[in-house]
């Protein structure tokens, strides 16, 4: 059995659900993630911040070009250096920076488009659903600068009352050397 098929068959927390329940959950999660992407692209950073729980984590490790024999060292680990290692507090600092009126790396603002695809529910534990997505983030800045970041995200989404909230995001880029002036956008 392929790895992808195996993962599907053994999805914890999903086996007891009917096909209809699974489809409803998939739909709800996808719509939530699309709405979240639209908030960033629409520059509604304060509203975006409110989607995150107070105990959230937001992390993008460093990826390295390594040989197959060193493949377990491809990504840095928690506690190592990373590009983002944020909690609610530091995400709030990023938003405050963008609202300050002097965040020159985003004024004139970048134009971004988050494409979220290949949404797969990896598991459900209590009120938390773990979802893997493939993303493509396009950024255009000034008249000439273009960046394309593609990768895999693992999001943890928590049901809080009637709402869904983000409580964790791991961002695994497909590029190693960051071919960009900065990472002033949100992933």
């Amino acid at each position, binding site marked *: 059995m392929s790895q992808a098929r195996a993962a599907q068959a053994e999805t914890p927390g999903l086996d007891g659900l009917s096909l209809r329940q699974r489809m409803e959950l998939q739909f709800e999660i996808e719509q939530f993630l699309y709405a979240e992407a639209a908030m960033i692209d629409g520059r509604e950073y304060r509203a975006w911040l409110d989607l995150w729980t107070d105990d959230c984590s937001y992390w*993008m*490790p*460093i990826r*390295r*070009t*390594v*040989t197959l*024999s*060193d493949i377990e*060292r491809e990504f*840095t*680990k928690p*506690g*190592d*250096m*990373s*590009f*983002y*290692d*944020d909690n609610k*507090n*530091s995400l709030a*600092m*990023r938003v*405050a*920076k*963008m*609202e*300050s*009126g*002097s*965040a*020159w*790396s985003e004024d004139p603002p970048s134009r971004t488009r988050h494409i979220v695809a290949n949404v797969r529910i990896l598991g459900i534990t209590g009120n938390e659903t773990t979802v893997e997505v493939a993303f493509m983030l396009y950024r255009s*800045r*000034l008249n000439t600068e273009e960046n394309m970041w593609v990768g895999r995200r693992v999001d943890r989404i928590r049901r809080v009352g009637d709402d869904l909230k983000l409580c964790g995001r791991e961002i695994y880029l497909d590029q*190693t*050397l*960051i*071919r*960009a*002036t*900065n*990472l*002033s956008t949100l992933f």
Partner: protein
Amino acid sequence: MDLERKPGEAPSKSEICSYFDPSDGTLDRRVFADQALYDLELKNIYARAWNFMCHESQIPNTGDYFITYIGEDQVIVVRDKQGDVQVLLNTCRHRGNALCRAEQGNAKSFVCSYHGWNYDLNGDLIGVPGLSSYYRKDFDKSQWGLAKAAQVDHLHGFYFATLDPETPPLYDYLGEVGRIGLGMLVANGPVEVVNGVQKNVIDCNWKIAVDNLFDWYHVQYSHASAGNSGILDIAAILHPNNQMVMFGEYGHAISGPVIPPERQAEIDAMSDEERFAVTVAKMTEDPNRLPQPLRMSFAKDMLGPTGVRCMGHPNIFPNLWVSTGGTQLSLRLPRGPFETEIWWFTVLPKAMPEEMKKKQVAFITHLFGPAGLLEQDDGENWSQSTRASRGVGSRGYRHHLAMGLGHDEVLYDERGAARVETAISEHAQRWLYTNWMNWLSADSWAEIKANHPALPKGRV
């Protein structure tokens, strides 16, 4: 005022010596946008200087390697079977293919993916497929080992290499100011590099990225939004009137805040336990912010009476920045006149408590690197400055780097370190470009030594 050279022709010595005028602090913009000048920089500066490779903790075991650069020469920094650090040019002697295509890792030997030539960790050629059948044994392997750096040496475990056998020994090359720069990294004891080097590319000339590290003038404006975010109290870190610039031979310099003598006297009176307690107390006051740990008492002997007060940014010529009070190293690697790779290494004391290490790593990640709240705003300034050096009209206007020129008196300490204690200024940038002209116009190390600017005296 416009280029009179033919395309591709290197600038003459007299042209080079006109680029920066130390008497009025103006700089010709052409230095940021000229392929022939850039090619000369690779030859006369990068191939002759001691270039930072990596720290010993990044390659602890036999076969551990880290790929980096001397100018545009890619090199393999590897620990060989004798435990020595070798710096090998990453290019097969047969047809030039890169031997290592990963950024780091562990290898038993280096095998070329083109025809299978196999090199030992010390660069010796140990295997050539078809030696008897195709070469008919008419080939001397001993003559075709990997090319090596001419010299490799380290200070405090920070390895450097040069392609020039005439380059003075590392210790002498660094001089007092370069040694203070590296000493700041180990002022709280032996260190190791935290796993993970952040790397990104900015479309700017490398010299703008280098001279910016001396520039404490831009902090209040470029980085105002980092202050608004709450990660930094810009006013508190800036100390605009407590600034020091140290001048080192061959272009090394340190620029930035200085601990006032009265405050240093208070620190000197404290035991190491008391210093550590102050650092811990300040850390718990505000979890978002991290004070620089007070240096331990041994640091005064190592850094000297001036170096121990130094809270600024050293640059080890040409392109190694010691940052954030000695917890990070940043390389500005040239990639043509219009591109620079920025690499960040994070360096922490081995004995630092785990909880404090975690906070340091988090703080540093929020501050620097391409996503850093501080650093995000730098790159576009540099790329736009570089871009504006290309227009026929704009490149005729020289940059102004005259802040503080003629207003400060050079002081010397008992170790012979030259400095000014002053307000925010552009003394270090002037020192950088004055020395850069000497490097670029010299044909050999003998000439660099003969003509390099003497440490300044009197009024600067």
